């Protein structure tokens, strides 16, 4: 017998080790928040899902370097930009230094097709003479040395016109050749390749910037400051994880102490951890087999929800009788335990029905976990537990407590009173019922937000909330639409409805426009004659402008520029981010800065007959949350019905099922009512927590309802339930103190739930027979 026990233990541990190895080798954790979103239903939602991760705004990091004098900071800014431009992880690095090199030398002749000059002028003698005269004036001014280098190749200064057109409309001040904020920080804009809301990928990108900065020889004494959506997701993630771990450590210690106090056996404690460990490992192993990637949130939530499974070994330990071995105790307990396991599985099945990938994973994980925990508690654990135990029914305090509980008056009007109070609280709560803003659950420190607003203002960086979406049949259609919009947009900017709109055609004109410009370019002879005429009486050296003539000739023969051809240069990548095929049509995305009058923009969109849309990312995200919740609520309703049927069938009595389900339902609504009365707005996390609490409450009600006619058994039931309640209160009560709303939401809801479920299931349980 002893040898058999050891063998079983070794086999069990070996199985866990194998599972652990499989999991460690094959587990790929994804942190992309999108897999926790439901399938998008409207075009705006579909676009949002793409934009949330891939949009140019969400991939932008704002960087500031401070703490030294202007010249040193400018030097650091240049060095950092150079080092980041070489790095694969960043698609664009801007620091304000206008460098003709940002336009690929190969692309330089394209300036005549990109700049609007030829729309209003021809390269004839009159125009050239006027331009040359201006260049003479420039040369005689003290600023001559700024222009000298450009002159032979570009006497009409098209490069500068393009630079002016392409610099962000509200660009920061340039000192020492790079951007500076009014607070004397050197500023950079970095676009990451990684999606904005993948905190892990963003963390790598941010780490890359910090490392590149730390590797600069002169970085000491200067400080690097980052901001932007990606940075925020990293901060929020780290904050939440940090607090959850810190709280988790304390409550684990408390939990172990509680179990030691309750059972006074280290062996029992260690053994009772086995079903939970098996549950967690088996759950992950099944996820790994079924899904290509496991979401980080699934694991975090899953472990929380598995808390229910801790009850199974606790029940077994509490229900041990003196002189009876564990296998016999479990056998007596099993029908009820099986009902508890089945009902918890039904509740978690609701997550699967929601249709959201992340929640489906959650359901698979928790249901597998519950089944493994339950069956290993029934068929494996009892063989390992020590033969002789201390029967908790002999404990003095427990006998008194049970007597007290039994003596409690249980008037029938209590449930009615609670129901009425619940209803009143729900009806009269003032604050909005639902919390739709996911960002409110992981709020950022105000100084971070203020810093972001300041840097965004200084850099003229685009607003992350609004996007103008241009739709047409193909790329050229989008560009042509964008060109047609330019006058209307300019008018809006002039009216201060918006500070700036970055239309794709600002960077890349449509082929039609390019072609008409190209056709206006004179041939070599004509240009040379015009140039000779224009330069008459001017002191320019003969042949000085040969590079200009060559470039114009090249421009005449260039294939027209499109986004694919343009994308070889850094600037072209920016254009690619603004133009994308989308199903059977193309979309152009124009970023907006400084939106002051949303209605004016809406009106612009309305007048375009659906070709242009103003996408409000925040409103769309909230509409998705609403859809999401509706799905979960529907699934919950179905799960509830299923639960009623299952419990009634298991107990073979409607009356008994009522005694179990009524306290559970009432307590669930009571939690909701108390939170509403306290002004809490209900979020998805509250819903998940309510389901967990309901699962726990169902166990309490099931066990309290059971009438064995044996006073000792009633005492053991109380013991088991008190241990379960205390351990749940310990773990979730700690979370309720967290400063992070999402953790507080879960902690508060489960703690309140456990307390209410416990009280109501005692008060509403049928009277124990007096022996």
């Amino acid at each position, binding site marked *: 017998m002893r040898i058999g026990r050891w063998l079983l233990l070794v086999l069990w541990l070996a199985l866990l080790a194998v599972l652990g190895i499989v999991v460690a080798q094959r587990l790929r954790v994804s942190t992309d928040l999108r897999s926790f979103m439901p399938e998008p239903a409207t075009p705006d939602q579909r676009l949002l899902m793409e934009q949330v991760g891939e949009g140019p705004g969400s991939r932008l990091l704002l960087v500031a370097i401070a703490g030294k004098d202007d010249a040193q900071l400018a030097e650091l800014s240049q060095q950092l930009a150079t080092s980041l431009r070489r790095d694969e992880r960043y698609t664009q690095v801007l620091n304000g230094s206008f460098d003709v090199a940002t336009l690929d030398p190969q692309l330089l002749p394209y300036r005549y097709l990109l700049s609007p000059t030829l729309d209003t002028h021809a390269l004839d003698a009159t125009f050239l003479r006027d331009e040359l005269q201006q260049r003479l004036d420039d040369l005689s001014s003290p600023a001559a040395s700024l222009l000298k280098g450009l*002159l032979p190749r570009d006497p009409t200064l098209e490069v500068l016109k393009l630079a002016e057109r392409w610099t962000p409309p509200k660009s920061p001040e340039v000192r020492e050749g790079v951007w500076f904020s009014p607070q004397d920080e050197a500023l950079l804009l970095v676009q990451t390749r990684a999606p904005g809301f993948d905190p892990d990928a963003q963390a790598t990108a941010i780490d890359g910037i910090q490392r590149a900065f730390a590797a600069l020889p002169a970085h000491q004494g200067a400080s690097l400051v980052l901001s932007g959506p990606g940075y925020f997701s990293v901060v929020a993630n780290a904050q939440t994880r940090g607090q959850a771990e810190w709280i988790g450590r304390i409550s684990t210690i408390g939990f172990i102490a509680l179990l030691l106090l309750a059972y006074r056996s280290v062996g029992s404690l260690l053994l009772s951890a086995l079903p939970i460990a098996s549950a967690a490992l088996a759950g992950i192993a099944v996820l790994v087999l079924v899904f290509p990637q496991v979401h980080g949130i699934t694991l975090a939530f899953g472990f929380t929800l598995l808390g229910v499974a801790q009850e199974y070994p606790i029940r077994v330990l509490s229900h041990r009788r003196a002189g009876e071995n564990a296998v016999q105790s479990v056998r007596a307990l099993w029908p009820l335990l099986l009902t508890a396991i089945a009902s918890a599985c039904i509740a978690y099945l609701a997550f699967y029905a929601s249709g959201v990938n992340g929640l489906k994973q959650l359901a698979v994980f928790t249901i597998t976990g519950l089944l493994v925990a339950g069956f290993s508690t029934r068929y494996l654990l009892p063989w390992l537990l020590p033969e002789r135990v201390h029967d908790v029914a002999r404990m003095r305090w427990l006998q008194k407590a049970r007597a007290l509980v039994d003596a409690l008056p249980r008037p029938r009007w209590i449930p009615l009173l609670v129901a009425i109070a619940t209803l009143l609280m729900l009806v009269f709560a003032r604050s909005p019922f639902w919390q739709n803003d996911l960002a409110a659950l992981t709020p950022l420190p105000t100084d971070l937000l203020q810093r972001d607003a300041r840097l965004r203002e200084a850099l003229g960086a685009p607003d992350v909330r609004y996007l103008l979406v241009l739709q047409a049949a193909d790329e050229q259609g989008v560009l042509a639409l964008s060109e047609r919009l330019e006058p209307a947009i300019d008018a809006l900017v002039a009216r201060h409805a918006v500070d700036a709109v970055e239309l794709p055609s600002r960077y890349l004109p449509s082929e039609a426009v390019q072609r008409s410009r190209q056709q206006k370019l004179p041939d070599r002879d004509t240009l040379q004659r015009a140039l000779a005429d224009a330069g008459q009486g001017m002191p320019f050296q003969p042949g000085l402008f040969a590079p200009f003539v060559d470039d114009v000739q090249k421009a005449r023969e260039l294939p027209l520029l499109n986004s694919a051809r343009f994308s070889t240069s850094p600037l072209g990548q920016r254009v690619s981010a603004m133009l994308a095929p989308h199903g059977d049509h193309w979309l152009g995305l124009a970023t907006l800065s400084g939106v002051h009058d949303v209605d004016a923009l809406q009106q612009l969109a309305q007048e375009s007959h659906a070709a242009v849309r103003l996408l409000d990312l925040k409103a769309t995200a909230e509409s998705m949350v609403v859809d999401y919740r509706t799905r979960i609520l529907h699934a919950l309703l179905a799960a509830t019905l299923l639960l009623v049927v299952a419990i009634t069938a298991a107990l073979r009595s409607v009356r008994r099922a009522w005694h179990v389900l009524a306290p559970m339902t009432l307590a669930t609504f009571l939690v909701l009512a108390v939170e509403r009365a306290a002004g809490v707005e209900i979020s998805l996390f509250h819903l998940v927590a309510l389901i967990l609490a309901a699962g726990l409450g169902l166990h309490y009600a099931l066990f309290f309802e059971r009438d064995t006619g044996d006073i000792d058994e009633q005492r053991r039931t109380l013991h088991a339930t008190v241990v379960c309640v205390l351990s749940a209160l310990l773990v979730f009560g700690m979370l309720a103190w967290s400063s992070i709303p999402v953790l507080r939401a879960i902690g508060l809801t489960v703690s309140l739930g456990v307390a209410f479920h416990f009280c109501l299931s005692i008060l509403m349980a049928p009277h124990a027979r007096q022996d």
Partner: protein
Amino acid sequence: MKMLDQPLVVSGELAWLGGDRLERRVDHPNREVSTIADGEVVQQREGREPRRFSLKRAPQLQILLDSFVALLGGDATRLEQSFTVHQRGDDKRWTLALVPRDAKLARTVGLIEIDGSGSEPRCMRMQEADGDLAIDLLGPLAGSMPAKPTREALMTLCQGG
């Protein structure tokens, strides 16, 4: 100037408006008024939109401003801050040689020389690093710009020949 086969000649007025403000008015051959004030440069040419840019974008102009303001205001400390100053000659005929302290600026503007007699500056010569030379005839000399100036003739003129 290397790009041109003859020197560029403009005439007008350079005025110090007090503080860090300077106005450069060109009357011939084309009318143009440029002002530097409050860190901003505004360039207005006849019949065209004014152009504005930050002084920080044009460090050459900053040098000019520094040297003029310091010189006209008689502020030797300020001059010393931006330039290493060498003086040669006597009270009657003197030359101030200013070399920008900032190494990056020295790469575009190598040397500024100011010739004067008594308390009056006569000439300002800005030697650019690429070999081009800009000469400003100031005050009493302003009217004596020759019709076809040469580098040598102007140098003699400045040095009081």
